[in-house]
């Protein structure tokens, strides 16, 4: 169910007409090609112009609707710019302390087996203060889907360095650029999670362009279906932009996502619905003995 929008004029002549006021071409019925998902509240967001959160919110709203789980969804909001996600997506929400969404979601998961549990986290929340919680929720294979929006910066507090900040990237707390000698290396946490047997699905998408957003939607859908299959923990990392924090225009920041993807490659890391996950678990339980391997080589 969507709120209909009238298709925008596409001919060169019509394109010069004032936006939003062009009447539908006479004699043709308006064709609906997009609209506001019913689950998305009809209000402006607090996000900065050009920010990627809005796109991700929209995808989540569309998919919760497509999967028919909105009525039984209990979503967990993080601390960071997206703490207000509960103001935009029309389901039940619980606000978690900074980084603790995976623990809060675990509590929900365990006492509400019939609920659809979704959590939304940023990179400061998930990859810094909440590292322990995300790793252990994933290790337990909690039936939760995590939407992890990585813009490489603490947006809400003024653009400070995060564990995900690129090497050399200038932020308000790395004014000369992030140096590995002082601040270590960017944290590929989704890759770290993907090696855990409890993780049914892990992938990384990007908001770099329309085609990528289409692929991201497919990733999110796949991840969200894992919970319905009872497959285990699922996470999609979204490479997103922060024009204000990065000191760029909206377009520059979107173009810059190609650079971000050099550190954080886009793609599916793990995709194992129940049967596959069980096999993977069995395989991974037997951790190879590195000493034995050395002995063989010698």
């Amino acid at each position, binding site marked *: 169910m969507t709120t209909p929008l009238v298709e925008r004029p596409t001919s060169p002549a019509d394109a010069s007409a004032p936006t939003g006021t062009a009447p539908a071409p006479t004699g043709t019925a308006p064709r609906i090609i997009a609209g506001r998902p019913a689950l998305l509240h009809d209000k402006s967001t607090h996000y900065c112009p050009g920010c990627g959160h809005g796109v991700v919110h929209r995808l989540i709203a569309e998919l919760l609707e497509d999967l028919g789980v909105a009525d039984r969804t209990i979503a967990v909001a993080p601390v960071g710019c997206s703490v207000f996600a509960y103001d935009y997506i029309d389901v039940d929400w619980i606000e978690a302390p900074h980084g603790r969404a995976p*623990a809060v*979601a675990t*509590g929900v998961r365990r*006492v509400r087996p019939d609920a659809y549990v979704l959590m939304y986290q940023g990179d400061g929340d998930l990859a810094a203060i909440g590292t322990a919680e995300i790793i252990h929720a994933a290790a337990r294979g909690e039936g939760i889907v995590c939407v992890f929006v990585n813009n490489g910066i603490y947006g809400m507090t003024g653009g400070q360095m995060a564990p995900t900040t690129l090497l050399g990237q200038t932020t308000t707390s790395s004014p000369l650029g992030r140096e590995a000698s002082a601040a270590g290396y960017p944290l590929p946490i989704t890759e770290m999670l993907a090696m855990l047997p409890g993780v049914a699905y892990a992938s990384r998408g990007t908001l770099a362009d329309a085609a990528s957003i289409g692929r991201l939607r497919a990733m999110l859908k796949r991840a969200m279906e894992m919970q319905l299959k009872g497959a285990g923990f699922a996470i999609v990392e979204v490479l997103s932009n922060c024009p204000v924090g990065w000191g760029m225009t909206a377009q520059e920041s979107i173009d810059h996502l190609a650079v971000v993807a050099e550190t954080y490659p886009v793609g599916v890391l793990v995709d194992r619905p129940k049967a596959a996950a069980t096999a993977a678990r069995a395989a991974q339980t037997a951790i190879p003995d590195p000493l034995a391997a050395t002995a063989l080589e010698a």
Partner: protein
Amino acid sequence: MVISAAPERVLMKGNEAIAEAAIQAGCDAYFGYPITPQAELLEWMARRMPELGRVFVQAESEVAAINMALGAAATGARVMVSSSSPGISLMAEGMSYMAGSEVPVVLVNVMRGGPGLGSIGPSQGDYLQMVKGHGHGDYRTPVLAPSSISEAIALVADAFEIAERYRTPVVILADGTLGQAMEPVVPVYRMPRRVEPDWAANGRGGRRPRVVKSLHLRPEELELHNDHLQAKFREIAAAEVRWTGELLDDAEVVVVAYGTAARVARTAIRRAREGGLRAGLFRPISLWPFPSAALAELAPRARAILVVELSAGQMIEDVRLAVEGRAPVGFHGRTGGMVPSPDEVVASLRRLWAITEPRNGEPQRRRHARSTPTLPSRAARPTPSEPAITDEPALQEVWR
């Protein structure tokens, strides 16, 4: 141990009794992390909760445990967490969020010696932390302090009831002795009535969505929310005061103590009476709300009040606030996991009696001024078995 439907006398360990009382009170989920001296509580839950088809999760940390509790309770489940002092510090964040977002959870703190890693011996060193509000922000938490294992069983049910009635976290404040000791008890379990949580985030179904949150970014909005919380705290303060007394009617000297310290004091007041000193015990059960009014009423009749704690002096602050100078207040405390002997307390009672004056109807101010005790000089420091008793806050330290 046998759990029987018909009350019969059984030998129970404090930690296990608290766990079983929670189960019998209808606890749906328990989240914890191993720490001495409360580990048996977690172990009891690990065995019993899955047996009953209920939820037990051993979390990766106390931080995670309290947040799992937050998530589960925010959906309307009846939830308990437990830990001991160092772990409780890690739970402070979650407690503040639960107070702010009004999520009912029962938290058990089986206190051990501190600060830091401290010791695993019994302590009451977390009084101020628990009673004055562990986490950040303007809030209060009801704190119930059992003094015996059978009382702990009763208070667990009360704690769930208070938590759900007022939508607030509630603390059961025990100590290493109560957790570890075994006592013969006749367990009387109680399951508080369940009320449909019309605020919980349990899936919107056909209704409007709910948000369980503590963030109110607009100052005007947060002040309104805080006004609401404070009104609730006033209501609790008026309705949930619990205390008990022993031999108070003719008591010249009144001991104020809770938990394990009160167990020692019970013996001490009887021994003092055997020696001719009329002593009584005032035992707060709710530490917040503190039974200030009852103590204030008692104070003018007392020649002196002796606060006994397994700490360097924490509850004494609330005693002094309640007494407001209407009686001299002395202190006897041990720390680090040490528990005072009854004879130590009797000795302190005698010394306090000796440096104070009888009630004779003289104007309070004058009598009080003259009764300023002769303080021990530093050269004449009491030995460790003879902690200081003074009326001066600056000299409240436990002399070692």
